[in-house]
């Protein structure tokens, strides 16, 4: 019983932490700020790709 309570307590803390983290990411627009860097990286990947350029 104590072990189950312990597990539930850990899970609740885990969810609370995830919720807080997701909330911070959402409110401060951190997902989009990170995407800016990812886009720059992906543009380099796309530039490197060999293409069959023709009309």
């Amino acid at each position, binding site marked *: 019983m104590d072990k189950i309570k312990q597990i539930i307590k850990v899970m609740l803390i885990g969810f609370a932490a995830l919720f807080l983290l997701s909330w911070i990411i959402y*409110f401060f627009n951190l*997902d*989009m700020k990170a*995407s800016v860097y*990812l886009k720059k990286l*992906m543009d380099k990947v*796309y530039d490197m*790709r060999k293409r069959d*350029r023709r*009309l």
Partner: protein
Amino acid sequence: MGKKMNSEKLGNFYYGNKTKKRREWRGAADTWYDYTRWLANWKVMAKFMMKPANLKGFFRYRWMGSYLAVPDFVDRHTEGLRGPQLRIAHKEFDFIVEHVCETIGNLFRADPACGGDEEFSRRVVVFDENMMSQIMNGFPNLQMVCREIPVVYTPSTVLQEGVLHYIDVAEEFGLPSDVCPMPAAELGCAIDDDFPQIGICAVNCNTTCDGSLMGNGVEARRFNIPTFQLAVPIRHMQESVQEYGAEEIKNCIKFIEEQTGETFDWDHYFKCMKTFNAETKLFREWLELSKTDYPQIIGNNVALYRDAYYQVGGGRDARFLQNDREITELGYQGYEKKVLCASEVRHRAVLWGVQAQYYTAFPIWLQNCWGILPLIDMLSLTSTSYYSEDDKEQAYLDMADLYMKMNMRNRSNGGYEVGVDDLWRFCEEFRADMVIMYEHIGCKAMAGYHGIFEEQARERGIHLIWVTHGLMDPRKASRKDMRGEVNRYMRAVLQEEPLDPTLEDFADDNNW
């Protein structure tokens, strides 16, 4: 910061970078709602990326990089919204996110470079971007994919620089820079080897215009699959062309049957048209609401979504109808509570001409900055007729009618009565005192009406504000330039002050 509209000074969120400083605080309930929808959208996109074919596609195709900005796209189209309008916007845009993920998923599934599902690819009929899809209502065993929509059209709305690379490629290969950027971008993408090679056959159309037709002809060299050119009449209001249009539809159906081995299924076609008619009925109710003192489903909450279900959905996807019912319910709730779409409603406007793809959130700016309600736009004022649910011969004429009157085509072509006279009729019906006239620099279709619009707006005492843009190329006229034209008119002619001064002039040239 707060529950009331305009409580956040929205212009302060822009600080010259690609993204905004933060998301809005809209009061506890609306912010919680927006947060949960943000999570839901990320869940949809994460699920999409977990499929190996989609991950391969992400690394293979440059246009996929644009989709990294999807949450920003949703934020732009919900900027400043509260209550029912916020919920209506999310119902629409979140569903568009899901639908586009499915469409791209189908593309990559069939693509030899990604999923390599040849059997699936043999059931794919590739449709041109700017054409209606109701012909496919009779082919339930086939999959219609509008290839250019996720590749060119949507990236240009998600990112303002979404298709500039392709336009530049086309120009490097000799295309003049003063042509319409839409076929130019499509052509550039084909030249740059950035289209998935899928499908058993393709149907191209001369909608919106000959620019599309010419570009498609060159692109077809890349795709190397049998292609049918569906040539629908331009003068779609004339009785004399209707039979010809129907004949073209019959020829197209015959082509698809021959290429795929399928037979047109009339029962399935009429079932889809019943759904389409039900969607039309609800859209008519939205229009009636917009004519009242408390319009609810306006501006952004009509434009892109109407494109999606009218043209691409075509009655085949019943989820659109379910979504429409929920949106209508929200609309009536807002109407009964007399909810306003702006903190102060100063003007009622009809948006005419073709919108800028890189600034589809412009109507929201009109609401938030100047209290101008964008009641309805030209591209949404497509056919509101009910189509036959049981007569085959009539159905050919109906399909021709729909194809001739696709979104961008039905008023930019077809003559004076649909391009000019109808504008004033809608101004009267919607009790609009203002017209926001989009003018695409590279489009010749409506350019000839310029002087007529000015003269007739003056006669009617309607404020006519020209907003020039470059359709998919913001280098020709930026978002700021577009806002500047409205600002100048509001200050100089109407001598009004903005509802949110921070939105009058802010730096978003670098923004997504």
